[in-house]
């Protein structure tokens, strides 16, 4: 097929003797192709590319879409285990569930929306939620939750950081709440390393019938298959978004590359999609389904065709679009939100379009929204796009899927040494040290932010964010009682300071932390997702950190999968890489962020963190609190610039034993509450347990810190552990059983009915009204949110 005369090539073949110059001139016109990619593209096509082809491949080969700098490293992550139905590669990963929920599968996806959220926080965060929800939905799933891991700058750095904080929270709430997908928590960290580059990681989780998972490919079979584009009319929003997300933020006005969200349309589309899933199952019709993200129509249709080993012919004139004129390459590649693409038998296409347009009247929900047949599957192995009589794209589908791989230079660095108190901290009474730590930004409650989010829509909630280490929802039919289905637990992890001090050990901790939180509620760690958020990939130090991070994730995942399947790793089933989180040459701290999904047996009540029963004994189980290195306390006492040193030691074998112990305790209903030790150490964890429970009955805690001097190390160490609240008559045996598993176990006092919070540590004591302790740190984020600052 020859190209139509009216479509000029993006460059002339003769220019290829100076590919750098071609690359520069394309970049000036908004297409990002490196010099070697310019040459490669011409070779793949056997001619000079048409303009739309240059645009398309610029997106396909962007870091965001191609993982070109990390693909070879990502192979080090374990992805196989018996429960894995579908590992990384499509929009979302899929894992099986045990009886009595074996008729369902769990669908997981994890993405970043970092660059857009820095530029336009509300829209950036909202479309982050929207995109990840589509990734899960397009597997044929009902989306039952989203989580967000947010890495904000230091609010003390200025008004711009606070605007980003407010905007991102409003974006997550403003999209997720109307959509009707509950927010299942996540985590929020503040660090000056993110002052110019916020991280917004979003995770979505869904449930699909085990025999109803849709794939993003043309199904096998001789039917005449057609492509059906569904949703919002294509406009120019988000054009170039993938390339934008694959570059450093420069302070230019990049706002046009940020997509525009519409949760209202999305809600109706979601309901219609699920009706379509049901219709397909009822009729026994096979189909492929994919959401439209980066690269829009071009990427979705070409990838659907290529994944099925087929070709595609797209008639762009037929695509519904906004009334104003759009350039062909914009129509082809814009990242307009709230769109999906189906591949269905031609004989079913009209009925499918009718479902969206008549039964759910999407055109009356959003002007111009529609479902239209835009092309057909071919057997010629080519991907062609025509438009107004011209051929815009004509290439072999294998060129689309060829992928790119780039080995970037990397430099491994020496991790920081463990941090120790240097004796410069002013001596203060115990009460002052505790109060001051609880008021710290890194330790204070996140409740002010999370109360913006609807965590209960859909009626599946069993434990909400803030009530336990992991959010827990019922997998069964909405409204069904316990016992009829397994429950699912979700938590995230990732500590920027620890990863900055030691990228490998910090990454191990990220996996262990997420899995530990899941185990604390009584769930078997079942699968992982990750997002590798790093800085400038052209900086060898950043690539060295990334490689170390992947090795750390892999090592921890290999060690912590045994509860789900003996001898198997905890598999990564979905993930994302976000590079070039860099402004003015300053990269973010290495920031691998991990989500762990867990499964709780149908007849096992999930374990909250709330203290509710006077008399219960607090038992800390895990690694003994033998060092302050990496702790919030050490960072705080050593001054704001201090890193706090290496993360605390992590013995993965003992960590696995801790998870096994926590899950067994839940199954045997031995504990009333459980909470993993996190930022601030064991004493802070106990305060958080008190805070999570009811204020009314006047519960208090008598904390009796085991061991002698130095008390700060025992109180504030962040060595991995879980604090359990155990009925007094069973506490001795509980601790003894933990020790038999090779775990350190010590009683830390008891819950009282006296309404006082008392700490006795070595020769020191401190005492407050319990209500006073519950309130400590509670105003920190409220103040930051509302404070007026000059810009």
């Amino acid at each position: 097929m020859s190209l139509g005369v009216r479509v000029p090539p993006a460059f002339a073949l003769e220019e290829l003797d100076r590919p750098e110059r071609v690359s520069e001139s394309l970049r000036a016109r908004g297409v990002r192709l490196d010099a070697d990619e310019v040459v490669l593209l011409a070779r793949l096509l056997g001619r000079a590319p048409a303009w739309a082809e240059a645009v398309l491949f610029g997106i396909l080969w962007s870091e965001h879409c191609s993982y070109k700098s990390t693909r070879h490293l990502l192979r080090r992550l374990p992805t196989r285990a018996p429960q894995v139905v579908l590992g990384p590669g499509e929009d979302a990963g899929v894992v099986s569930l045990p009886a009595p929920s074996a008729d369902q599968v769990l669908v997981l996806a994890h993405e970043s929306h970092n660059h857009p959220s820095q530029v336009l926080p509300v829209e950036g965060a909202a479309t982050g939620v929207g995109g990840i929800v589509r990734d899960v939905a397009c597997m044929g799933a009902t989306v039952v939750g989203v989580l967000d891991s947010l890495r904000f700058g230091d609010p003390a750095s200025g008004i711009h950081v606070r605007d980003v904080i407010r905007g991102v929270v409003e974006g997550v709430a403003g999209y997720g709440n109307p959509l009707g997908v509950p927010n299942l928590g996540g985590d929020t960290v503040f660090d000056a390393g993110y002052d110019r580059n916020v991280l917004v990681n979003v995770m979505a989780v869904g449930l699909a019938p085990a025999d109803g998972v849709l794939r993003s490919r043309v199904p096998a079979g001789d039917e005449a298959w057609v492509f059906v584009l569904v949703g919002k009319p294509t406009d120019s929003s988000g054009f170039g978004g993938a390339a934008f997300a694959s570059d450093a933020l420069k302070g230019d006005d990049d706002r046009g590359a940020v997509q525009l969200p519409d949760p209202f349309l999305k809600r109706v589309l979601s309901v219609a999609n699920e009706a379509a899933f049901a219709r397909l199952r009822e009729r026994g019709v096979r189909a492929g389904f994919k959401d439209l993200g980066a690269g829009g129509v071009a990427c979705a249709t070409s990838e659907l065709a290529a994944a099925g080993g087929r070709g595609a012919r797209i008639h762009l004139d037929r695509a519904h679009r906004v009334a104003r004129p759009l350039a062909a390459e914009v129509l082809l590649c814009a990242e307009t939100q709230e769109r999906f693409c189906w591949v269905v038998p031609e004989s079913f296409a009209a009925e499918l379009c009718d479902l969206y347009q008549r039964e759910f009247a999407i055109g009356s929900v959003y002007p111009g929204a529609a479902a239209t047949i835009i092309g057909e599957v071919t057997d010629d192995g080519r991907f062609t796009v025509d438009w107004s009589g011209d051929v815009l794209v004509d290439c072999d589908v294998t060129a689309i899927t060829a992928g790119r791989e780039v080995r970037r230079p990397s430099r491994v660095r020496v991790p920081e040494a463990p941090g120790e108190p240097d004796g410069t901290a002013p001596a203060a009474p115990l009460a002052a040290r505790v109060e001051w730590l609880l008021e710290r930004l890194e330790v204070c409650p996140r409740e002010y932010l999370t109360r913006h989010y609807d965590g209960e829509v859909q009626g599946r909630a069993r434990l909400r964010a803030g009530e336990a280490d992991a959010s827990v929802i019922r997998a069964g039919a909405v409204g069904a009682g316990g016992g009829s289905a397994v429950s699912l637990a979700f938590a995230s992890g990732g500590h920027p300071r620890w990863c900055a001090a030691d990228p490998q050990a910090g990454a191990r901790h990220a996996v262990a932390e997420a899995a530990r939180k899941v185990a604390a509620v009584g769930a078997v760690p079942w699968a992982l997702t990750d997002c590798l958020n790093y800085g400038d990939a052209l900086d060898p130090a950043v690539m060295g950190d990334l490689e170390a991070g992947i090795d750390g994730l892999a090592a921890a995942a290999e060690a912590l999968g045994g509860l789900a399947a003996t001898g198997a790793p905890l598999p990564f089933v979905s993930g994302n890489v976000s590079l070039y989180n860099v402004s003015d040459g300053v990269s973010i701290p290495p920031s691998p962020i991990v989500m762990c999904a867990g499964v709780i047996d149908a007849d096992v009540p999930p374990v909250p963190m709330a203290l509710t029963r006077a008399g219960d004994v607090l038992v800390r189980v895990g690694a003994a609190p033998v060092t302050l290195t990496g702790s919030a306390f050490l960072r705080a006492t050593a001054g704001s610039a201090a890193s706090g040193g290496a993360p605390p030691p992590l013995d993965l074998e003992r960590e696995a034993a801790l998870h096994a112990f926590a899950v067994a305790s839940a199954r045997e209903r031995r504990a009333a509450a459980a909470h993993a030790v996190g930022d601030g150490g064991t004493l802070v964890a106990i305060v958080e347990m008190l805070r999570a429970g009811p204020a009314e009955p006047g519960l208090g805690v008598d904390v009796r810190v085991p061991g002698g001097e130095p008390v700060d190390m025992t109180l504030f160490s962040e060595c991995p552990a879980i604090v359990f609240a155990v009925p007094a008559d069973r506490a001795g045996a509980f601790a003894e059983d933990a020790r038999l598993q090779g775990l350190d176990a010590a009683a830390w006092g008891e819950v009282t009915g006296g309404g006082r919070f008392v700490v006795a540590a070595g020769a020191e004591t401190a005492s407050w009204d319990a209500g006073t302790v519950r309130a400590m740190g509670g105003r920190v984020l409220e103040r930051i949110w509302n404070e007026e600052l000059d810009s």
Partner: protein
Amino acid sequence: MSASVAVIQLPGVNCERETAAAIEAAGLSATVFAGTRAPEDLRGFDAFVIPGGFSYQDRVRAGALAAKHPIVGVLAEEADRGKPVLGICNGAQVLVEAGLVPGGAGVELALARNRMPARDGYYTRWIRVRVEETPCVFARGLEPGLVIPLPMAHGEGRFVGATGRMEALEAAGQIPFRYARSDGRVATEFPDDPNGSERAAAGVCNARGNVLALMPHPERAIARDAVARSIAGAWSAPAPCDLDAGAGGPGPGLLLFRALREHLEDA
């Protein structure tokens, strides 16, 4: 055969499924009724629920557009015949915007933006409501003074009326549910009163008691083990070590749907 309840699914509604499940859990039959169906098809149902969500994207005002939908016209006529109508959260906003609550004299109330110290907009929390002396069918059989924990999740839930109007409604028993403190007294401060509603109203009904606009979400509180861990007392979720296998039992929100069922069985 159990009485049948229609759950109205207008575009943007997002609580239709758990609302239908809650109705079923109370022993009634529930049908999600799509807004694209003929409104006349509603006549055969025994009761109606407008569930929560963001109908029509809260354009103009929350509930304002849905209130003009022909379906709501049919609901008004069926309500005049005495059939029960419950609006939850956004559904409550629709009923107030349509003038079905308090009823009879056009639009008399508004659900204004929450009034909260040091915050604005959407807010979620488990709160408590107290049952008052009332003809409301959704409080049928519930002792006045009974305190029920429920979750709330909204940005515009503050009932306001012309001077004296809410006081008059209270006197007439048309505020069946008021925000309450843990000791059972009427809430006077945030966050027990989460939005600054006049007379601490969480729900307002018509004079006959068959139409209720309720801001909190009873359909999210159908199982006792779903009750928030911040709630102590009779409805508190049991600690895992206290719980017998499979136990948990009905949650506080089910009381309202059971009241509806009793009413329909008598009708």
